[in-house]
């Protein structure tokens, strides 16, 4: 029987269900550990639109003040906006209160260092140890600072960073017709301003009321964006954008109302980035080989990391990559703006690509190398994981193997990747091949071997 993961305290922070699992006490303790770790000084805080955001804001404020930190509260803002602000204000660190694409009953603390980057693996494990040791800095009356709000400057700062890397005049002149589904998330107000005012598009927006609950499944995927697709068709939009609650991920819909595979969105962004600035590309193991083909066109190198934004970011920093991301989850990381997943950068790059080439989204996608991808989830019993992986590897002796995150088996023109989910007792199976038939055959074969 699959266990429900109502609370997870781990190297990626704290995530859990509100109402007894992710409690204010736990959030405050974790924040106090964070404040102890980064040291007394400014810490930036922001949140998405979840109902538990204000409650957790107070809890985190309490923990940070108790550690002697000063809090700058940005209110409801996208996660990348917080990260950019942290670096700009030279703060000690930042915290985003968001469970990203998880359902509304969840919330989480995402932690950033003084550069506005996800904690690397060393920082994460040090912080976790500190949390468990409960040896926190305890500020006395004279050392306790206050919470100040900055509800205005962060969005403009974020826009400014993005606009340095696109041709704003060219985008504005096209007066694109754009459809937006903001999932009533943290980016709601900011996206309307960015697309409607800054980029001067004809904007048709739904779900941009941050006071309302998420109207759809929060993760932006082809099957959750039917409203957006309908909006595109109804309004004849050139492109449709679907955000997640904290505005880091982006899904895209073409002018025909077809929601693109997230791997293709990343591929377009990589193409746009490498055309202007050739350099290394970093993606996770589950991202499409399309990226390899595009990088090859520009003579650039592709690095593969375990799944997880922090892993991708860490490698990008190490190799000074031009661009990176995680295909299936809909995230583009463009370090020239900031080393973080950012839907605003993605929107601007795509509109700029359309303006530059004069092509429609479907035309741009049609020009990409074609692969078929299939994915599935297989429940498994704890303790059997090693045996399953081993058997799978042995049954494909001709494949090139990569074991840095589960098992990836690779052949010319196709691959399969099996890894255990970090959040559920599930195996995630992904395959890719040049034709649908090849992909289905590989998927069925692997599925059979994993479910014996």
């Amino acid at each position, binding site marked *: 029987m699959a266990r429900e993961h109502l609370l997870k305290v781990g190297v990626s922070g704290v995530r859990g269900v*509100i*109402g007894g699992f992710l409690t204010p006490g736990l959030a*405050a303790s974790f924040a106090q550990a964070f404040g102890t770790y980064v040291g007394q000084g400014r810490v930036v805080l922001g949140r998405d639109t979840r109902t538990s955001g204000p409650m957790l804001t107070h809890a985190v404020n*309490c923990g940070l003040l*108790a550690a002697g930190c000063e809090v700058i509260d940005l209110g409801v803002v996208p996660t990348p906006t917080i990260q950019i602000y942290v670096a700009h204000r030279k703060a000690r660190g930042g915290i985003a209160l968001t469970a990203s694409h998880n359902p509304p009953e969840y919330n989480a603390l995402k932690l950033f260092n003084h550069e506005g980057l996800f904690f690397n693996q060393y920082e994460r494990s040090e912080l976790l140890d500190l949390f468990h040791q409960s040896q926190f800095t*305890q*500020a006395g009356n*004279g050392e*306790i600072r206050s919470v100040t709000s900055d509800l205005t400057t962060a969005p403009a700062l974020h826009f400014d960073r993005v606009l340095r890397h696109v041709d704003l005049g060219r985008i504005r002149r096209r007066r694109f017709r754009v459809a937006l589904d903001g999932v009533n998330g943290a980016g709601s107000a900011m996206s309307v301003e960015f697309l409607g005012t800054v980029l001067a598009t004809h904007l048709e927006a739904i779900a941009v009321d941050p006071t309302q609950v998420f109207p759809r499944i929060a993760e932006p995927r082809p099957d959750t964006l039917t409203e957006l697709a309908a909006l595109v068709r109804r309004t004849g939009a050139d492109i449709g954008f679907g955000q997640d609650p904290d505005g880091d991920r982006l899904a895209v819909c073409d002018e025909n109302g077809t929601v693109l595979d997230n791997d293709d969105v990343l591929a377009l962004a990589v193409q746009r980035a490498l055309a202007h600035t050739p350099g290394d590309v970093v993606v996770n193991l589950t991202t499409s080989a399309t990226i390899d083909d595009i990088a090859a066109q520009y003579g650039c190198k592709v690095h593969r990391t375990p799944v997880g934004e922090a892993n991708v970011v860490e490698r990008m920093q190490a190799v000074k990559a031009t661009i990176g991301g995680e295909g299936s989850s809909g995230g583009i990381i463009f370090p020239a703006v900031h080393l973080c997943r950012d839907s605003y950068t993605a929107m601007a790059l795509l509109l700029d690509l359309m303006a530059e080439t004069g092509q429609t989204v479907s035309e741009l996608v049609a020009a990409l190398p074609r692969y078929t991808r299939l994915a599935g989830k297989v429940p498994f019993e704890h303790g059997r994981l090693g045996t399953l992986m081993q058997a799978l590897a042995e049954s494909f002796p001709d494949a090139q193997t990569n074991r840095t995150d589960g098992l990836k088996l690779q052949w010319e023109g196709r691959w399969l990747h099996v890894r255990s989910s970090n959040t559920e007792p599930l195996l995630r199976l992904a395959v890719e091949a040049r034709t649908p038939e090849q992909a289905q055959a590989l998927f069925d074969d692997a599925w059979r071997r994993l479910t014996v």
Partner: protein
Amino acid sequence: MNKALRISHVGLRGIVGQGLTATHVLEFAAAFGTFLEPGRPVILGRDPRLSGHMIREGVLASLLACGHDIIDLGVVSTPVVQHAIQRLDAAGGIAISASHNTIDWNALRFFGPSGIYLNTAEAGELLDIYHLRRFRFAPWDQLGKLTVTTDAIDTYLDGLARVFDLARIRPLRVVVDCCNGASALILRRMNERFGCGFILINERVDGRTVAHTPNTSASIVELQLAPLMQPLQADAGFLFDMDADRVALADEQGRGISEEMVLPLLADSLLPASPGKLIIANLSSTALLEDVAARHGGRVLRVPVGRQAAIDALSSYRPEQIALAGEGTGAVMMPQFRFVYDGIASMLAILHTICDRGQPLSRILAGYPRHHILKAEVPLTSPHIPALLEELQELFPDGEMDRSDGLRIAWPDRWFHVRVSQTEPIIRVIAEQRDSEPRELFETLLDRVRRWN
């Protein structure tokens, strides 16, 4: 013994960072959120201590998580919180204030639906919930909402203005030592709104520093306030603690008046209008109370020392049976204010008395029989306190005995009280006598107490 943290029936109290941490605050507030009935808002206020910022955030988080709506009054006196609970028909409230403790302390004080401190049974239930740590958190779509208000002090002053004729006291020249606490905000506003003309000292409110220890003892008054009285030609001087629930005073001749005198003064002014009613006071308070009560046909009910005993006594009488309740520390509750310890209300009542009598404060005080009180603290080292009390009881077989809090024995002209402190590891020895010092009695007591320790 680590005195930096104390969790008891009176709530949570400690030195912030050293004993009192964010975790304590969150858990205690969650216990209160679990204890309170859902449905009505909870009132929150705090004194100016900087640590109040941190504690406020923790209290907000836990109460919101338990599904309670909160009305935050900001920096106010504790009585303002209590009044708001009554006025807004709230489920209860929390005052973040360590009152008369030094600036590095802070505390959570809990109030029920009437704005009165939790009684011992209620406080016991709250403590049990805290210790069990099984809190009733609301699901994600039923969390509370926060409202911040800025009009709490004005609404409180409207209430004071209905009970006291503020125009009448305007001719008096009054100096107030605010001790950098919440009273500064209230009195400044009274000057603006009612032209009270209070001369305020130590009125800067930054929560970081205080001009002196914020307690209302006579020695602080002697040192800080009394020397200003004659130079400023003041009719009366008052000194408040950080959250203005206690008050001490100085007369127009520059004498610090014992905090013990607040209760008899108020009894003398309130009893004529409420003959035969009760004065609730503790076993260590001056016998002058009996003298004053006798003048007006009132009666004194002696209860154990500490706020909790007074609160419990209040809840076992009907409000109309009681004229006044309070302690020798200058903390007094009046029925006009539905029994809230309120230093500012006490000050206004005393100013009214001065106007009513048409006499300077020193003359009013001189009109009372003179009681001489001697107090000492002996470090508590012996585990044999019951045996000590037995011995003292046998030594003085002729007096009227009360064993409800240590040992008190009273004779017509003198009394003594020996008890163990609830807050510190000491034995308190107090003896009082009319007209002259009870030196011999006091020395005998000290001698016996020391021999056992």
